[in-house]
């Protein structure tokens, strides 16, 4: 047997950091090079925003095993809070207002997540789906009626357009980094154990309500950040963008990608955002395509595109170094799940 080369942990982190930096810098150069037209630039940013949303919903649906139906509500809270913050702080230095805006947007959404989550998650059964469904609608109607602050149906206009390629994808990278590090820790294992078996988790000393609400709040936080990025990209916000169908769109991405796989969430979010936009002729058939895709995946791969697997570049490189890229792939994948 050949000796296995084990990449040390710091070098794995270094590989990932270099990769992210290259992607961000390369992407920004491409984005600003003039090779892309306006429409494809917009699609690119939207892919990033929906990827953050899918990654965030995956925490709740994939890792925790709960089914919220109002994710767009958290996105809306983040979008409006972020937009209003940015509008109020235009005089601040750009870096400061942008970063604080994102954090405030995320925290506002997380607060709503905690307020909704504590009663909804303490109940056993499917109450969470119903309560979050109601929450999503309440938020939308509240935005319409608080028109003094939110602009109501005519929209909130003149939001500073902060969302560059760099900002969008740096947020996506941060969302993936945070989620990965949480899930691969004792806190993440607590969340996964709740999905596995609630009674057993409790018998192992896991505080169910605490970890459910925590996962839910983290999911809401990242959705709020995505909302702010969305606001800074669109430049204007309308309540109808955050309706029930928006929540379902995000859910479809997570289910298609594979519940419990961030890679799957990002791929599905990218495909489902890019496809309808690139094929304008098909855009009116979007829901038909969604349904067909869902049916096909559910028949042939009920666990979603990626199942619970995640792709790791550092693992790929390690395999490359060992010269066993294809040989023992099956075994490796199992071992790393």
């Amino acid at each position, binding site marked *: 047997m050949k000796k296995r080369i084990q990449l040390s942990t710091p070098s794995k*982190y270094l590989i990932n950091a270099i990769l992210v930096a290259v992607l961000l810098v390369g992407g920004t150069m491409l984005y600003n090079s003039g090779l892309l037209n306006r429409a494809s630039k917009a699609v690119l940013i939207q892919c990033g925003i929906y990827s953050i949303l899918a990654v965030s919903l995956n925490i709740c649906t994939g890792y925790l095993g709960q089914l919220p139906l109002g994710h767009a509500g958290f996105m809306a809270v983040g979008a409006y809070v972020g937009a209003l913050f940015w509008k109020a702080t235009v005089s601040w230095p750009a870096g400061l207002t942008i970063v604080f805006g994102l954090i405030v947007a995320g925290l506002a959404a997380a607060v709503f997540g905690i307020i909704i989550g504590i009663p909804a998650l303490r109940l056993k059964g499917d109450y969470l789906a119903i309560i979050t469904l109601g929450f999503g609608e309440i938020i939308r109607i509240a935005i319409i009626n608080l028109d003094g602050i939110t602009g109501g149906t005519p929209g909130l206009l003149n939001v500073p357009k902060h969302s560059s390629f760099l900002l969008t994808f740096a947020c996506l990278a941060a969302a993936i980094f*945070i989620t990965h*590090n*949480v899930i691969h*820790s*004792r*806190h*993440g*294992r*607590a969340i*996964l*154990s709740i*999905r*596995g*078996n609630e*009674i*057993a*988790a*409790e*018998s*192992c*000393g*896991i*505080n*169910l309500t605490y970890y459910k609400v925590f996962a839910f709040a983290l999911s809401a936080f990242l959705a709020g950040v995505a909302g702010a990025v969305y606001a800074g990209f669109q430049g204007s916000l309308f309540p109808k963008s955050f309706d029930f169908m928006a929540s379902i769109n995000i859910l479809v991405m997570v289910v298609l990608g594979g519940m*419990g796989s961030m890679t799957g969430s990002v791929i599905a979010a990218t495909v489902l955002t890019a496809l309808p936009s690139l094929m304008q002729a098909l855009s009116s058939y979007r829901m038909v395509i969604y349904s067909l895709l869902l049916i096909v995946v559910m028949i042939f791969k009920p666990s979603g595109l990626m199942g*619970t697997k995640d792709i790791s570049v550092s693992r790929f490189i390690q395999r490359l170094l060992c010269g066993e890229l294809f040989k023992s792939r099956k075994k490796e994948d*199992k*071992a*790393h*799940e």
Partner: protein
Amino acid sequence: MSEQLHALGPKGFVPERDLDKTPVLETHHLGIDFGGLTAVNEFEITIGRTEITGLIGPNGAGKTTVFNLLTNVYKPTRGNILLDGVSTAGKSTAQLCRMGIARTFQNIRLFKDMSVIDNILVGLHHEMDYTLPEAILRLPRFWRGEQIARKRAMELLGIFHMEDTADTPAGSLPYGAQRRLEILRALATNPSILLLDEPAAGMNPSETAELMENIRRIRDTFQIAVLLIEHDMSLVMGICEGIAVLNFGQIIAKGTPEQIRNDPAVIEAYLGKQQEV
């Protein structure tokens, strides 16, 4: 072994060596009703610090219900439970785990999608003390906590020689190995009493014999008490220092294996039936 036992009035058995200490578990008038049905009534037991106690009785007698009462999965209708002399009333299942009571389940409840070692690491959750920000930023306390916990998890797997399976999904283990993993996960929570619900169910005789030896070894190594529900008479009689017999939710006999074997009520309610089959 049975000479060491010392009957304490009607309450049961506390080995002499533990008489000067608080019993690890004590129940008084414990009972629960489901609607009109009294599933458990007047359940009284006292378990010494390092005692292996058996809880036997026919199917539906209420044995699993007793475990659910002891871990507060069901709230008792009557009576109280003292764990290390402290009342467990109003405590959640998770809090009781931290107070020192750990259990396995009759119908195995592993985290099937998680790896074998991750199952144990869930049990070791409270042995690690790094915070959430420390985990997100991967600070030194995170690495140190994880490293110590992983080492401990591998040691625990070593008890049943399961180190090789550490990275496989728990759900893909053979049945017997799943039962053993559940015991290890419970042990990981650092209990003072371990509740085992039919640990030998589905095991063949040689596996059962090995398990018996291992339960004794676990008790000796970790110096903990064990309360086990079991149908396999050879296992119960072989390793238990005290036995309580439950029938229709009531304790009908308590004593040493010797006493239980010769108790007419037990023979009629339980052993008799076994022999007829």
